[in-house]
């Protein structure tokens, strides 16, 4: 199997879909001739032309709204937000038009929105956000967040094949840092959690870039057998996998890179409190960004984003509980 970066895996999925299905088109700001701010669609115009790799006006509401229109007449649009942060400008179309469409009138909206998200590189308050929880709260939208190259490709294929609006949270910090073996051709990764490392003393539940942090933080921690559960999908949330891990490990640390209040991890904690209580042997611990905008300067940003040290400390404390 070829080794790809996380970014190459995303490109590979898009290229395979454009080749396999003429209904697929990719649209976004600067994605055509320029190949995208992060070069995910580099060279695509040469193979697929400017109609199917569409440079759009700088208008996020229009990108999503037009994609909805194209989807309901049979296309399979994949939109790129140049940065996940800019989704705020297209919020209404996603929440009120796309998300509620099938429930209200049984009309499917097969739409993918790619959201380059997350911090760790001095992007500052408007290029570092993790807005996934905003969309988890709104019915009708699926939300997935890969942590590996193989899952980035497989989840993107599954998202494009899904008949519903899917928000694909791709973490910018992983683009060129994460590499791995990726199967060739089209395959689907299910919207289910994955045990990234099995264990029995404590489970760290994470998704996206925080999976790598969880693995690094707990690789060699007091001889404990620490499980890492990679959620992969936030909507649907794989409740059974979460409860299985809790039943196996009894102690739980949940990490979000996002701001802590009402984050995905809060929903996971609530689930465990309600349905996994009898299996717990300690408080459910959360590690997340505090409720501040993500600051620009490296020492400030590092003080806010959950890192290896904070996760290690949280696990150590909980193991000693």
């Amino acid at each position, binding site marked *: 199997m070829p080794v790809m970066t996380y970014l190459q895996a995303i490109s590979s999925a898009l290229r395979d879909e454009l080749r396999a299905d003429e209904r697929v*088109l990719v649209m976004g700001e600067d994605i055509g001739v320029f190949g995208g701010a992060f070069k995910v669609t580099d060279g695509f115009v040469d193979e697929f032309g400017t*109609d*199917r790799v569409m440079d*759009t*006006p700088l*208008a996020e*509401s*229009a990108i*999503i*709204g*037009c*994609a*909805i*229109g*194209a*989807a*309901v*007449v*049979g*296309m399979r*649009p994949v939109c790129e937000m140049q940065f996940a942060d800019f989704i705020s400008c297209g919020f*209404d*179309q996603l929440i*009120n*038009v796309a998300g*509620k*469409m*099938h*429930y*209200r*009138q*049984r*009309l*499917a*909206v*097969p739409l993918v929105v790619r959201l380059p998200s997350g911090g760790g590189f001095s992007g500052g308050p408007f290029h570092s956000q993790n807005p996934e929880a905003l969309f988890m709260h709104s*019915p*009708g939208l*699926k939300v997935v967040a890969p942590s590996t190259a193989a899952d980035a490709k497989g989840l993107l294929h599954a998202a494009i094949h899904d*008949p*519903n609006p899917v928000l694909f949270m791709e973490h910018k910090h992983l683009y060129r840092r994460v590499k791995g073996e990726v199967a060739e051709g089209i395959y689907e990764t299910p919207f289910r959690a994955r045990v990234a490392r099995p264990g029995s003393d404590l489970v760290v539940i994470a998704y996206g870039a925080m999976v790598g942090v969880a693995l690094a933080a707990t690789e060699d921690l007091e001889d404990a057998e620490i499980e890492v559960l990679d959620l992969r999908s936030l909507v649907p949330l794989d409740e059974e996998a979460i409860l299985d891990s809790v039943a196996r490990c009894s102690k739980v640390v949940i990490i979000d890179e996002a701001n802590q209040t009402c984050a995905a991890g809060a929903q996971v904690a609530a689930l465990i409190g309600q349905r996994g209580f009898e299996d717990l042997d300690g408080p459910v611990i959360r590690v997340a960004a505090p409720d501040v905008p993500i600051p620009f300067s490296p020492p400030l940003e590092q003080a806010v984003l959950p890192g290896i040290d904070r996760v290690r400390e949280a696990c150590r404390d909980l193991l000693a509980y």
Partner: protein
Amino acid sequence: MATDTAAPAPASAGAHRYLQLADRVALLRAMLMMRGIEERAMSLYRQGKVPGSFYDGYGQEAVSAGAAYAMAAQDRLCILHRDLAAHLIRGVTPVRILAQYMGRAAGVTGGRDGNVHFGDPELGCVGMVSMLPDMMLVATGMAMAFKLRSEPRCALTWFGDGSTSRGDFHEAMNWSGVQRLPVVFVLENNQYAYSTPLDKQFAVDPVQRASAYGFTGVTVDGNDVEAMFDATREARARAIAGGGPTLIEAVTMRMHGHAAHDDMKYVPKEQVEEWRRRDPVEHQERKLTELGVDVAAVREAVHAEIEAATAQALAGPMPTAGGVLDGVFCEGEAVALGDGLAPWSGFASDPGSDA
């Protein structure tokens, strides 16, 4: 790009270049049906049988009837809340509309959404959301797909004067102008956005904005159903020929309040009186009476149909709560919008043409 006034189409006195007599009666019928259903629904609302509030398009019937009548089966529409005649022309039956108002199981959304928030996907329609100009972008996207696939089809949406203030209006006008998309924007200028008059909404006549986006804008008497048809037919032909979007400003008047609770005291009485003299239904009735049509018979037939539909809708059950959690997501294959009815004789004679 010129801002034009739609050219009158009649070839000679009494005749119409594109509309046969049956078409002209069908237009009247659609307007009468819209008015009759909405009046009936208002009485049901006052009886407590329509939950929530009730919104109607009294006085604006010509705008949706005339525009929808010019659309082909394979065209796609985003229909707004004062455009009931468009649903009727596409083929939604009165009983389903009345059941929809009453939140009954047989309503178009099965009780999941209220009043005029619906579109029948099988008839080529996407239901509106309350953030009205959102649908301009959905229509733009449908038109984008038609152009990408080189299909001779067009998308149309309605919106109001208030919508022109929102960002999505700009984004849709700009995008469709840049890509020269086959889309028709019908600006239903009914003088008020809820209670806000035009002079607090925009500083220029909104039809002028079309030229700023690089396409044609026309102003039409929104109370003349045949003029609405003419302007839309022309806009559709332009769209299909690759001439890009058209903004049609239909000048009309919202003769009732924003919704049932609104007594409209902010509207000067003289303004209402002036527009009452320009009633679109009476206008078409006068025209057809001169052509020898038995207008009273049309009215009677429509009335009878509405009464039967009302009885049927009232007899239908409310939805059960059992399935209320179902269908948030599509579990099977995505099914794209189907074709609607297109009763205009111009399509019947040559369904594949852009007429």
